[in-house]
């Protein structure tokens, strides 16, 4: 799931808003459509956040149940996805707390490189990056994922994670620093890529 462009995200949000308005009117089919869309989006980060298939599935339904009940109260100050992801994030933390689970930080942070700079071949880059990401504290990993996996802005991530914008920046800063420490060759290849290539 690549981060969509700003234009694509805007179009997606407009579609979400139309669906949500119908959901607010009690339209079951619109709710089913919204459910299917967000089930996929939520499953990804909830599975990673909770590491428990059952909890993730439960949180998805808790989240969308709240969406059904409160669709009419959505004021539209943020994107629909930001609103729903925020609910899911809080629900997941609550579910974990109620089961006495801590956030998953199973692997201690070690700043020893996982792989030597000259061994970071293109074919294995993604695998190494994902392995390194699993060593990040959960909040830092999620900040990266909200930014790159879901294409949220800094302000939206702050809303979802209920923290100041500067905290998001700090989490991203540390996450990136740790990834560089773990994968010294990360910036090696393609350093000459053009700046606007991904926009």
């Amino acid at each position, binding site marked *: 799931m690549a981060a969509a462009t700003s234009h694509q995200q805007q179009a997606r949000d407009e579609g979400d808003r139309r669906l949500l308005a119908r959901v607010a009117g009690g339209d079951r089919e619109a709710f089913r459509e919204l459910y299917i869309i967000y089930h996929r989006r939520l499953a990804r980060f909830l599975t990673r956040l909770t590491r428990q298939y059952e909890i993730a599935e439960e949180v998805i339904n808790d989240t969308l149940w709240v969406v059904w009940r409160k669709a009419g109260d959505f*004021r539209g100050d943020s994107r629909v996805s930001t609103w729903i992801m925020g609910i899911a994030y809080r629900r997941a933390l609550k579910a974990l707390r109620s089961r006495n689970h801590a956030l998953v930080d199973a692997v201690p942070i070690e700043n020893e490189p996982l792989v030597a700079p000259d061994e970071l071949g293109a074919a294995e880059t993604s695998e190494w990056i994902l392995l390194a990401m699993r060593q990040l504290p959960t909040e830092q990993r999620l900040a990266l994922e909200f930014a790159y996996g879901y294409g949220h802005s800094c302000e939206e991530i702050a809303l979802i994670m*209920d923290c100041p914008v500067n905290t998001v920046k700090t989490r991203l*800063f540390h996450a990136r620093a740790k990834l560089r420490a773990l994968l010294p060759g990360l910036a090696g290849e393609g350093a000459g890529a053009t700046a606007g290539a991904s926009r």
Partner: protein
Amino acid sequence: MNEHARAHELLPWMVNGRIESRDAAWLDAHLASCAACRGEFSAQQRVRDAIAREPTVEFAPQAGFNRLWKRIEADAHGTTALGAAEADSAGAGASQDFGLERPARPPRARATPWLRVALAAQAAAIAVLCIALWRSPPAPSYQTVTDPPIGPVIAGPVVKAIFDDQVRVADVKEILATSGLVVAAGPSEAGVYTLVPRDAHITDIPPATLERLRADPRVRFAEPGAR
């Protein structure tokens, strides 16, 4: 903030397309003349691409929707007051209000007289049923062939796993053999298998076993699970 620090802070938003146009113009100009920041830009593009390529777990959305819809209908037929209070406190009252804590709330309304009568009648019916249950003979300790099957009783650690749709039985056997696991239950409606150690004396799933399963492209999902 110096130029490199500013560029460093802006790079994620350039990478995910959420940068402001004014900042993008500045960052483009900076990257054109700064090899170090270009390297970091390239690194962040790789991180974004890796996240995008990471396989997602496929749940069964329609089955999940059906379960949720039953819950919604149940709310509508009797537990509405509780459901409304829970949803209120679940925080969707405003787009910026994600507060999911549940502060104690007063009851929404006093019980009406007819409701009191209904509750009293319900309590009396429950009491009669309890007495009938207490006086009924105990269930037989044997199972006939027409009894519903009893589900497996699984003790000890388990792994919940989903195999790729294209995986053959021989592959599953090989995966299980190399992991020292056997199938205890499944697949569920969502295609989830419950795996347990072949050696019943093992009390924990070794992390290396989970890592091996997760690294296997034929396994789409593998996590320690509840029994």
